[in-house]
């Protein structure tokens, strides 16, 4: 028998208190009678009964002590020990990161070796040796819950394949820790990977790493991206970086093709461990998606995955802009020079708010604007709905600029001189709008940018490809507190950047040069390549996905250690316990009820 709360035996010290309380004189009710003669005779002639009465008094005390003892025992939480066969629980984590696609010297991939190693563990599965199967690449996933069915485990292990993603094993270890948290018996985590890593043990669980890789030479493309030249948006330049993860120099060609047409071939000569970058320039005149593919002619390396890279030409649609002004030479010239914009000039008298629906953005140059628009994207210069009507700010300076805001990207406004500016304030009750002031003079905003409307969550389209949210339902406004002629901004380099950033952000972009169409690193279990993401409104966007992970491409770190014993946790016999306290409490309650009944029948006094 085991007592989980043995300290409760300390309550035994209260027994003398109970006895003392019991021995205290009962306050008797005085009753006057004519004679004691009969009572004396009753008690004299009933000596046996009197003796029994005394015994019953002791019985009452014994009942009290027994009830107390039962309650005290219940508080100690006693259990009757009995043997319990407690099974073991093991989580098999198969590393499915990109480098597991690497081939070993015998031609077998690391993934196949890991699967074979995991299968040897799965053969030990049984009712008292349950196992679960997890994979770990970009995300941790459970392929098979705890099971003693060897066949199910084998099938789930054999279905595991290496992904194109990198990442680390910690999320998988945390998930394994969560899975094992509620399991009894011996717990263990077995990781099948190409190398031994320093892993943080979740909840101090034992981790065994089974390594299946050896050091291999590899040539990899680590970066591949394109961008439009700011001076000539129709011209794109392509960056490629190639690394040699081997102890031998390597010489080979990097082929770049656009939409299946060979664009360029560059020879690379890399010393051992060297990496080099190269820039390709091209002009694209055809509309549509520009799919760039870089292919490294290295047929003898261990990981073909990183010999191919994908990128998209970040072409954006032509934005339609309406400029409402009485005359602004700087602004007109700027808009005319931007080939990504097609603007129309309109006199203030001819402007109608309904026109905003036909343009991606409307610029109101010092035009009255009392309220925020119901629809359309607007850029207010000087006059705006945010103007408080207060005194003008004289010669303000930029004291705080949020360079992370899309409107201020690459634009340095710290040295711009302002003659005056309008006092503006962010509305106290913005409703659905979200405003911010990325450019401030003290606590006075010089630029207010806001948007409303939500981006839809990613959905899976009918083609099976993931979709991303559309930004078409987002309405944006921006307001500058100063007129262009009230500052020397038009003479600054920041002027075209600020205006281009702001107009493109208003028109629905993430800002000029935003990363929307840049080549992305693999972070999910998708395969490398081009993926089309469709939004709920039917619009689509292409993305190029690559591994681009030095840790995945550098295969020299793999190292097979001595073969592990391959044993999973063994079942064991432990002492279980049937809790006794409910029965003790029940017995105490029954005795208490009986004592109460006897007391009221004066049977125990």
């Amino acid at each position, binding site marked *: 028998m085991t007592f989980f709360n043995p300290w409760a035996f300390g309550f035994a010290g209260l027994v003398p208190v109970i006895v003392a309380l019991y021995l205290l004189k*009962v*306050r*008797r*009710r*005085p*009753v*006057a*009678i*004519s*004679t*004691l*003669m*009969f*009572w*004396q*005779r*009753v*008690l004299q*002639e*009933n000596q046996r*009964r009197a003796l029994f*009465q005394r015994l019953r008094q002791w019985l009452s005390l014994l009942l009290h002590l027994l009830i107390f003892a039962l309650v005290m025992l219940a508080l100690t939480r006693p259990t009757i020990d009995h043997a319990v066969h407690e099974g073991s629980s093991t989580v098999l984590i198969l590393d499915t990161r990109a480098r597991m696609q690497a081939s070993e010297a015998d031609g077998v991939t690391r993934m196949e070796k890991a699967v074979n190693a995991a299968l040897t563990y799965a053969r030990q599965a049984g009712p008292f040796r349950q196992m679960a199967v997890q994979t770990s690449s970009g995300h941790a996933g459970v392929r098979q819950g705890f099971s003693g069915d060897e066949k199910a485990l084998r099938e789930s292990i054999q279905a595991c394949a290496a992904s194109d993603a990198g990442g680390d094993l910690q999320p998988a270890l945390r998930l394994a820790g969560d899975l094992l948290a509620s399991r009894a018996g011996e717990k263990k985590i077995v990781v099948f990977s190409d190398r031994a890593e320093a892993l943080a043990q979740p909840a101090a669980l034992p981790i065994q790493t089974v390594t299946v890789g050896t050091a291999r030479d590899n040539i990899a493309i680590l970066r591949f991206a394109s961008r439009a030249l700011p001076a000539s948006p129709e011209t794109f330049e392509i960056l490629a970086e190639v690394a040699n993860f081997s102890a031998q120099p390597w010489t080979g060609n990097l082929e770049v093709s656009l939409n299946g047409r060979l664009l360029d071939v560059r020879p690379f000569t890399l010393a051992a461990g060297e990496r080099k970058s190269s820039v390709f320039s091209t002009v694209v005149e055809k509309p549509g998606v520009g799919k760039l593919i870089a292919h490294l002619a290295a047929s003898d390396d261990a990981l073909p995955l990183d010999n191919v890279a994908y990128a998209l030409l970040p072409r954006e649609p032509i934005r339609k802009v309406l400029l409402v002004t009485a005359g602004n030479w700087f602004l007109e010239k700027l808009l005319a020079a931007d080939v990504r914009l097609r603007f129309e000039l309109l006199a203030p008298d001819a402007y109608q708010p309904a026109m905003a629906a036909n343009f991606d953005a409307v610029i109101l140059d010092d035009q009255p604007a009392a309220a925020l628009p119901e629809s359309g994207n607007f850029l207010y210069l000087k006059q705006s709905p945010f103007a408080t009507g207060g005194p003008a700010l004289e010669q303000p300076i930029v004291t705080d600029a949020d360079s992370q805001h899309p409107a201020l990207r690459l634009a340095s406004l710290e040295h711009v001189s302002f003659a005056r500016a309008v006092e503006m304030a962010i509305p106290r009750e913005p409703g659905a709008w979200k405003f911010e002031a990325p450019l401030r003079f003290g606590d006075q905003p010089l630029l207010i940018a806001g948007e409303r409307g939500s981006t839809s969550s990613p959905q899976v389209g009918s083609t099976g490809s993931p979709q991303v949210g559309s930004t078409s339902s987002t309405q944006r406004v921006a307001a500058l507190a100063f007129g262009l002629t009230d500052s020397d901004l038009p003479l600054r380099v920041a002027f075209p950047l600020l205006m281009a950033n702001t107009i493109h952000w208003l028109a629905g972009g993430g800002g000029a040069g935003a990363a929307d169409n840049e080549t992305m690193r693999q972070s999910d279990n998708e395969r490398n390549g081009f993926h089309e993401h469709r939004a709920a409104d039917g619009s689509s966007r292409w993305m190029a996905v690559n591994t681009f992970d030095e840790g995945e491409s550098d295969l020299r770190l793999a190292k097979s250690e001595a073969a592990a014993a391959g044993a999973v946790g063994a079942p064991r016999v432990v002492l279980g316990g049937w809790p006794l306290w409910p029965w003790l409490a029940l017995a105490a309650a029954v005795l208490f009820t009986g004592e109460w009944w006897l007391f009221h*029948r*004066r*049977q125990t*006094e």
Partner: protein
Amino acid sequence: MATADSAAVFDTAFLSKLEQLYLLAKKLFRGEHRAERRSRQTGSSLEFADYRNYVGGDDLRTIDWNAYGRLDRLFIKLFEQEQDLHIYLLVDASASMRWSPAKLRQACRIAASLAYIGLVNLDRVNVHWFGADLGEDMGLTRGKSQFHKVLQFLREPPELAGTTRLLETCRAFTKQARRRGLVYLLSDFFDPAGCEEALSLLRFAQFEVHLIQVLDPRELDPTDTGDLRLREDESGATMDLTADESLLRLYRQEVRAFLDKLAAFSVERGIGHLQTSTETPFEDLVLKVLRNGVLLR
């Protein structure tokens, strides 16, 4: 106290009913004055008693001439002498009787009724208080006109201390009583020493004894249960006990045994015995119960 409302109880109608009653005496007692009771003395009443031989000097009017005609001898006809009867009313005024005011009141009322009946019949009546010993008495009185004296005496019972001791009381009474007669003991007879010896003493002293036992229903059938401290009024003694139904049942059995024993003793000794409760209506008690108990006629 006990007879505070005696005026209301002894109204004219009730007293007229009492006048119809007559205290029965099984024995013939020698009286002092001529009255309406038969006595052992021969006298001039109309009740024939016996014959005796004529001797010189006898009243010639008492000669039975018919007997002389048949037997040719002179016999004198003797007639019973009707004399008064001594009636002693011994009323228990101990603490056990005062425990319940109704008990002493009932006893005093019965005593007053018996005294009235006796006085109406020209008997000589005396009333004694008693407790641990014989207390003061009223003094012998005769005649209906002395009834107020009886009432006056019963109106002020003394507070006698101590436990009831019938033997001491009867011993003192037999020494004090000059004439034999009827003795009515009105008490609860809660004498721890027992009352048999005392009653035997009275019988030995040639008294005709009648017991009128007055009890309170609570004495017969107590209902108090629980943790009790019983205090006896007479001695002040206390007893702690926890009364339950079983103990009360034993108590009732004990009381019943006591009453049965007293009744059996009375029957065996030819002692009149009547047990009454304070709940019995007084008029019914006197006019019915005492008659049924053959104490009255």
